């Protein structure tokens, strides 16, 4: 027995020793690997949990690969900043102009840009890219060909696009969200949809070198068209399988650019170093979605009552730990789109501030009185008791719902949460087979138009039982549709603002959905290793690494801090 214990001690000691040897100190950033003639230095480690190992495919039209290829290797024509209401930065296009009636768009392509294999970029590549995704609709991730009619090269550095319908807001998808690929390579690919593109050739600031399933390493592109850029020589993008591992590496400083949801961020992350910061820019509304075909919910006073009965700041602080600010009933995400908010209109409704008394008043006006079981009931005996479907995996949404349930109970409306799996939830939501749902749309854009359209445009909705990927509450109003269409036809900022104001009016008076909190982008950054990060005071781009092509803007601004 003693012999065993002796060996045991030796083995344990050995293991601990190896542990001590290999336990890495926070990665230093002064590994000076200069890139080409640019004097780039330093290594930036990206921290974004993807839940799987990398497949080492970089096809910019493949939804699973876009987040590691666009912005790093491939670039768009123009950078449009959603956080600054669409402020533009010319990238591969130097200028553009709308033709008569806003049904044509001409881009002037930048000269002197080279792909990483040395081939110069011309308008031919741009035209080829758009016609490629026309030929293979599976590549058209944003559906630009639903509004385009033709894209042709009209000069060595000029491309003209013609539209089948007025679609000014689609500029965002065409100019910002479409990566430009080299014609001389892609025209030789037999099946571009399945093409893995393991050694991508693009015009962007970085090249892939090398990619392993556990980690992607990017090296600075020495031929990049912006002189002196990029400043960071090497990027590392590890494949994290779970949130915990990713969060842990942010907290110990081994990764510097995070896109993570971190619970208890103060103790977990911020307290570990004075250089650790976070910023969660709000981008989309998380809303209660009533099914407007439900006879009880179709009464606007009931919906208005619900909007007054919910204490949004409380949902935000308890359910979302304060990470997601309270939303407003106008559906304008603030402070991101504050310039679009019509405060006087909001004032007419007392900003829908938490007011249970007013809620009860409205319910009384709708013909409801409190029943003996504490639930509001009308003269026909119908109770205001509903099931609300929610995504069970989103623990913060489940927690938020608990607060909402409590708030509505206080005014006599009973909500019973039904926590579903992701796919079961989407199936019910899209088909309209629910009473109330809790949801956040996915479309972001340079103005509130993009999200509001998703909620209010009846062109995309569908009858109950059929799939509707937007406007799931089935809000149908021809006047609102006309407003939305008129926005699509104008480039006048004044007109756009006026239309959005009217759409806010719809949200406030008709209450088709009830925004509760504002969904945010998760973002953490380390100012001890790099400077030039986007911040609340300087929102020059969407900060998360998976947001493309905003990530390129961040990468171009970041500079290593010399130690």
């Amino acid at each position, binding site marked *: 027995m003693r012999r065993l214990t002796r060996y045991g001690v030796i083995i344990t000691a050995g293991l601990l020793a190896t542990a001590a040897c290999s336990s890495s100190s926070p990665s230093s950033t002064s590994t000076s690997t200069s890139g080409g003639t640019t004097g780039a230095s330093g290594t930036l480690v990206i921290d974004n949990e993807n839940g799987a190992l990398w497949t080492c495919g970089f096809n910019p039209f493949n939804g699973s690969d876009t987040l590691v290829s666009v912005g790093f290797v491939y670039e768009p024509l123009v950078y449009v900043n959603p956080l600054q209401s669409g402020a533009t930065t010319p990238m591969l296009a130097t200028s553009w102009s709308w033709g008569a009636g806003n049904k044509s768009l001409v881009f002037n392509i930048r000269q002197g840009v080279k792909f990483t294999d040395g081939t110069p970029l011309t308008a031919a590549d741009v035209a080829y890219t758009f016609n490629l995704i026309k030929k293979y609709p599976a590549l058209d991730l944003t559906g630009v060909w639903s509004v385009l009619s033709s894209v042709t090269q009209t000069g060595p550095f000029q491309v003209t696009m013609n539209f089948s319908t007025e679609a000014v807001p689609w500029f965002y998808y065409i100019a910002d969200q479409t990566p430009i690929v080299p014609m001389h390579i892609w025209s030789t690919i037999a099946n571009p949809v399945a093409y893995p593109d393991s050694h991508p050739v693009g015009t962007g600031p970085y090249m892939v070198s090398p990619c392993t399933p556990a980690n992607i390493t990017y090296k600075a592109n020495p031929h990049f068209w912006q002189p002196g850029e990029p400043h960071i020589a090497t990027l590392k993008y590890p494949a994290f*399988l779970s949130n915990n591992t990713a969060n842990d590496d942010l907290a110990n400083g*081994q990764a510097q650019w995070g896109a993570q949801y971190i619970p208890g961020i103060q103790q977990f992350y911020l307290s570990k170093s004075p250089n650790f910061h976070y910023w969660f820019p709000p981008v989309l509304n998380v809303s209660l979605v009533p099914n407007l075909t439900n006879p009880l919910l179709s009464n606007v006073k009931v919906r208005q009552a619900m909007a007054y009965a919910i204490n949004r700041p409380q949902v935000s602080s308890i359910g979302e730990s304060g990470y997601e600010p309270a939303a407003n009933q106008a559906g304008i995400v603030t402070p991101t789109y504050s310039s679009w908010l019509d405060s006087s209109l909001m004032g007419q409704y007392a900003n829908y501030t938490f007011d249970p008394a007013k809620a009860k008043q409205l319910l009384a006006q709708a013909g409801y009185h409190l029943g003996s079981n504490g639930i509001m009931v009308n003269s026909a005996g119908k109770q205001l008791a509903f099931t609300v479907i929610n995504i069970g995996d989103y623990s913060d949404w489940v927690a938020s719902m608990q607060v909402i349930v409590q708030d509505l109970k206080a005014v006599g409306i009973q909500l019973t949460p039904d926590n579903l799996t992701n796919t079961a939830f989407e199936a019910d939501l899209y088909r309209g087979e629910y009473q109330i749902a809790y949801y956040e749309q996915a479309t972001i854009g340079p103005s509130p138009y993009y999200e509001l359209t998703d909620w209010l445009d009846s062109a995309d909705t569908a009858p109950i039982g059929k799939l509707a990927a937007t406007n799931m509450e089935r809000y149908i109003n021809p006047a609102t549709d006309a407003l939305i269409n008129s926005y699509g036809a104008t480039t006048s900022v004044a007109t756009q603002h006026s239309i959005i104001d009217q759409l806010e009016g719809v949200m406030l008076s008709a209450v088709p959905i009830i925004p509760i909190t504002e969904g945010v982008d998760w973002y953490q950054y380390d100012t001890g290793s790099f400077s030039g990060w986007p911040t609340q005071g300087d929102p020059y781009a969407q900060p998360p690494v998976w947001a493309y092509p905003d990530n390129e803007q961040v990468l171009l601004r970041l500079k290593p801090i010399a130690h």
Partner: protein
Amino acid sequence: MRFVLRRLGFFALTLWAALTLNFLLPRLMPGNPALAMLAKFHGELTPQSLKALEILFGVQTHASLASQYVSYLHQMVTFNFGISLTQYPATVSSVVGSAIWWTLGLVGLTTVLAFVLGTGLGIVAAWRRGGWLDSLLPPVFVIASAVPYFWVAMVLVLVFGISLHWLPYVGGFNVITDTPAFSPGFIGDVLSHAILPAFSLLITTIGTWILTMRNTMITTLAEDYVRMARAKGLPGRRIMLDYAARNAILPNLTGFAMSLGFVVSGAILIEYVFNYPGVGFQLLQAVEGEDYPLMQALFLLITLAVLVAILIADVATALLDPRTRAAR
């Protein structure tokens, strides 16, 4: 030999039962859950992948249940488990293949340690019957058997990982600084990440080993031939090891087989708490992401592994214990 064949037959039957369970479960659940999942991924999958998944889950096929079953079995036998939906476009086989080494390492290492330490301690406890070890062990390990595995893991994380910062407690290796390779740095990293998970698994599984060994040793020590050996004046250690322990170990092996199911459960939960990238962790990730193809394949793999281990234990028992052979 007949014994081994009978056991093999039994395991083939169990494997078939597991396969059939896998086949029936999604079809039995109200509103086939796989249906919604496949609808969601419809646009992204190639026709072959889609077909494979449809066969796996019985979606949109007009074939009869029987012919679906045949196609399903054929797929299983050719190891075509489909595409992982959460780790698209990786195949299920590739995900399983990369995860299995971690679990094998963790569970294998820990089981060997548990066997060696557990049997050793059990022998000593039985030999010194009534001593402090013997009276302390049973109640301690009775309680230990009731403690949830993940709780032990959490306590270890709290003490050694978070409070003392002695050992890493997340992941299998440091993804940022290390790339998988046969270098001393990587191996050291892997070992340091394995200590806490292995220790948790060890604590929760060693109890059975100790207790069974102690109990069988006590019975063995009461046997006549041991008394004879003592009367003959043989040295104590020799009696303990050569006479008693050798015979007492055998039932332990069968006990090991019985407890393997619990070792597996423990490993799954411990991998979850430590985010250790093994088969158990992938199973729970698959469940969370509704990745049914991956989930099914992992379940089958775990069942197969347990069956193989039990078979090995049974064969070893048969080889070592002539009584078993004769009785059958």
